[in-house]
């Protein structure tokens, strides 16, 4: 893509895309930090994730301001317009990922105090790894402008959904085995749900990024498997 006749237009677009990258990196480190804190009962790390959320919120507000100002000043068209509007929406999803990571981090103290979470949280660890790969991937693929990879990444969310279903069943089993596990497992269940929601925000980001890059919307339906509803009725 060539440069704009007005050089400061390029600068302003560059600042917005840098903010998206920063927010993406921060989201990645918050997700990895919160799950690590959860699995190792690391309260200090959990506190850092909680305070990172303030930075995330500030970045989002800065991005909103810059995007609105750019629209007012430059009236962007075509790919520029898609990039600016897409950034506003992606920033919203990244901010939500930050919130969800913060929620996980907030539970660290509570889960740590009750029965040994180590054995119980094993499958959550695997799920968190899948989510982390997705969060880091979506930012990288957008920066690399790889639309095909983004379409694939969006479909990969299915793996998280499947994993979530199995975590759900597993935690349910622990609770039935020994009622003393109920408190810890309930907290872990919320954490698992938060991770699953993070996955959904990643798919939103992938869809937006795909649209920004290609001008085309991905098809509305994607493979979806959340069988927890069935599992409860069973």
């Amino acid at each position, binding site marked *: 893509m060539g440069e704009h*006749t007005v050089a400061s237009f390029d600068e302003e677009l560059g600042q917005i895309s840098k903010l998206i990258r920063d927010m993406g990196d921060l989201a990645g480190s918050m997700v990895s930090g919160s799950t690590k804190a959860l699995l190792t009962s690391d309260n200090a790390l959990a506190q850092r994730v909680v305070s990172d959320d303030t930075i995330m919120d500030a970045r989002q507000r800065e991005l909103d301001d810059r995007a609105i100002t750019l629209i007012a000043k430059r009236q962007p068209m075509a790919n520029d317009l898609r990039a600016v509007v897409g950034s506003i929406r992606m920033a919203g999803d990244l901010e939500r990922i930050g919130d969800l990571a913060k929620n996980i981090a907030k539970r660290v103290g509570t889960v740590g105090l009750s029965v040994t979470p180590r054995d119980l949280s094993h499958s959550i660890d695997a799920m968190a790894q899948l989510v982390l790969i997705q969060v880091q991937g979506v930012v990288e693929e957008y920066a690399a402008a790889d639309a095909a990879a983004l379409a694939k990444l969006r479909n990969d969310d299915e793996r998280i959904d499947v994993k979530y279903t199995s975590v759900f069943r597993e935690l349910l089993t622990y609770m039935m085995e020994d009622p003393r596990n109920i408190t810890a497992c309930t907290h872990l269940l919320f954490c698992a749900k938060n991770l699953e929601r993070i996955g959904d925000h990643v798919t939103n980001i992938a869809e937006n990024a795909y649209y920004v890059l290609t*001008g085309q919307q991905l098809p509305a339906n994607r493979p979806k498997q959340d069988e927890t509803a069935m599992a409860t009725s069973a």
Partner: protein
Amino acid sequence: MNIMTEQTLENAVGDKMNAKSNEVIKMRGDKVGVFYGEKQALFDVNLDVRQNQVTALIGPSGCGKSTFLRCLNRMNDTIDSARVTGKITLDEDDIYDKNIDVVELRARVGMVFQKPNPFPKSIYENVAYGPRIHGLAKRKSDMDQIVESSLKKAAIWNEVKDRLQEPGTGLSGGQQQRLCIARAIAVSPEVILMDEPCSALDPIATARVEELIDELRQNYTIVIVTHSMQQAARVSQRTAMFHLGYLVEEGATDKMFTNPDDKRTQDYITGRFG
């Protein structure tokens, strides 16, 4: 359930597309070329103008958009060195045919220019002039009727109805331009060509003219040349992009300004032209 909904959606979209392809082509340019002496200004332009739609012609200066516009009512005939090749039809009649009466053609395909150019006559006479030379009104009352309805259609009646005998040149720029639009409408044209009609107007007058263009679309077919990308995006349903005498891309305005196919269009509308 999901599959059915999507199927229905696809059908609906398909129907809409079919309806679009059925739209009437009011004017058609077929391999239109224009030479000014030795110099070729326009190359092989194939462009359809659809009835009751606004078609915007965009592109950098010297790209041929005004040249093409002027071909549509043979304004290029007034330039001695200009020569037009290819074929342009109005309702499937070749407008460059020997049997075509150019005066009648220009009544059917009216024009509004960049700078408002009212005649140095009264507001009434500005509008009445065309109908008079075309013999459209037999009695004074008929003419009064034409003048009033034209001024109303051009959304300027309320501002001038009490001073119809004052000179048209005494109006503000925006009013003058709407007076010129009323003058074009007075001879009941089918197509109205507008060559940067708002470039000499302030934002409020521009908004009035744009609003007017949208209303006029119900009864007329409009082709507009504009340098304002936002204006093209606001007022038109179809947009054609010209560059160096070639038609680069033509399509639905919504798509042209969000996701154009051609890189030159993209570069031009996003402000990246070298």
